[in-house]
C-alpha cells in the first residue's frame, strides 16, 4: 500500500533554521530563495511527490510551524 503525504507550513512563522531539511529522509523539503516578513528563508515542499508524511520535519521543528497530512492510496 502506497502512502502519500503533504505538509502545510506557516510560512510567516518559520525562522528558517533548516533543522527540518536535514531530518527529511525523502529530500522533499528545501529552503526557499524568497524570504518571509521577518526576513528568514522559509522551508517549503520542493518535491511534493516525494513526501510520505513521516512527520519527522514537524517533530524536530522548534517553532511547530508544520502540519502533516497523510493518506493511503
Amino acid at each position, binding site marked *: 500500500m502506497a502512502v*502519500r503525504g503533504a505538509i502545510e507550513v506557516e510560512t510567516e512563522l518559520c525562522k528558517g533554521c533548516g533543522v527540518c531539511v536535514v531530518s527529511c529522509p525523502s529530500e522533499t523539503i528545501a529552503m526557499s530563495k524568497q524570504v518571509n516578513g521577518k526576513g528568514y528563508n522559509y522551508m517549503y515542499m520542493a518535491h511534493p511527490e516525494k513526501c510520505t508524511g513521516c*512527520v519527522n520535519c514537524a*517533530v*524536530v521543528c522548534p*517553532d*511547530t510551524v508544520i502540519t*502533516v*497530512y497523510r493518506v493511503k492510496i
Partner: protein
Amino acid sequence: MDITDIIKPENKVYGKSRLLLDKVMHFCPGCSHGTIHKIIAETIDELDIQEQVIGISPVGCAVLAYDYIDIDWQEAAHGRAPALATAIKRLYPDKYVFTYQGDGDLASIGTGEIIHTCNRGDNVTIIFVNNAIYGMTGGQMAPTTLEGMKTATTPKGRSYISSGFPMKITEMLAILPGVVYATRQSVDTPAAERKAKKAVIKAFKCQKLKKGTSFIEFVSTCSSGWKMTPTEANTWMRENMFPVFPPGDVKDETGF
C-alpha cells in the same frame, strides 16, 4: 493525487499541540528550547493533566515559558526554582510540579537548591537544559562549558587550570538516594526527540506514583552563542558534547 486532496482535516497526522499558545516564541532560529517546550506540551496533553500541572519557569532564555504553554506557571528567582517546586508540591501534593531550568540557572547560581531538593527526594520533575553556555547574556562560560571551548569570557578556550572541568550535574545528582530517575536526552534528531518525549512521560508518571525526584537533562544547542548555523550546531553537539555528556539513562529505579 494533488496536494489539495491530501491536505484535509481528516488526513491530519501531526500538528501543533493545543497546549502551545499562539504567541511566537522569542527563541533564536533552531533553538532546542522550542522543541523541548513542544515535548512538554505534548506530554501534558497526552497524559491529560493540563489542569493539574504547575510549571516553574527559570531565569534565562526560557524565562518566558509561561507565555507559550497553556498551564499554570510560577516564575522563580534566579536558581531557586527547585525550592519553589518543593513548596508548591508540599502545599498541593496531588499536583504535578516541574521546573524548567537552564545551565546558568541550575548548575551555577542554583546548585545548592537543586542538590538539596534532590537529596530530600521531593516528588517533583526537574527539566535541565544544558547548552554549555550562558545563552541569554551573550555567550559567557557556564559551569558546563567544555574544556577548550571558546566563549565570550574564555576567548582562548576554557582551561581547567583556571576554570575547572565541565560539571556533570546528572551524574552528581544520580548518586543521591532521593533521585529515582536521572536521564540525559537530546532533541537534535526525530528519533532523539521521540526518545526524549518518552523520558518526560516517565518522569511525570514517577510523580503520579510518588516515587521521588525525576531529573531529565537535555543536551541542547545554542547556535547564537556558539556562533554556528542551527544544523552545524547540532553536528557540533553530537561530535563534542556527547563524549562528555553521553545521552541515556544514568539511573532508573522507577521499576516501570
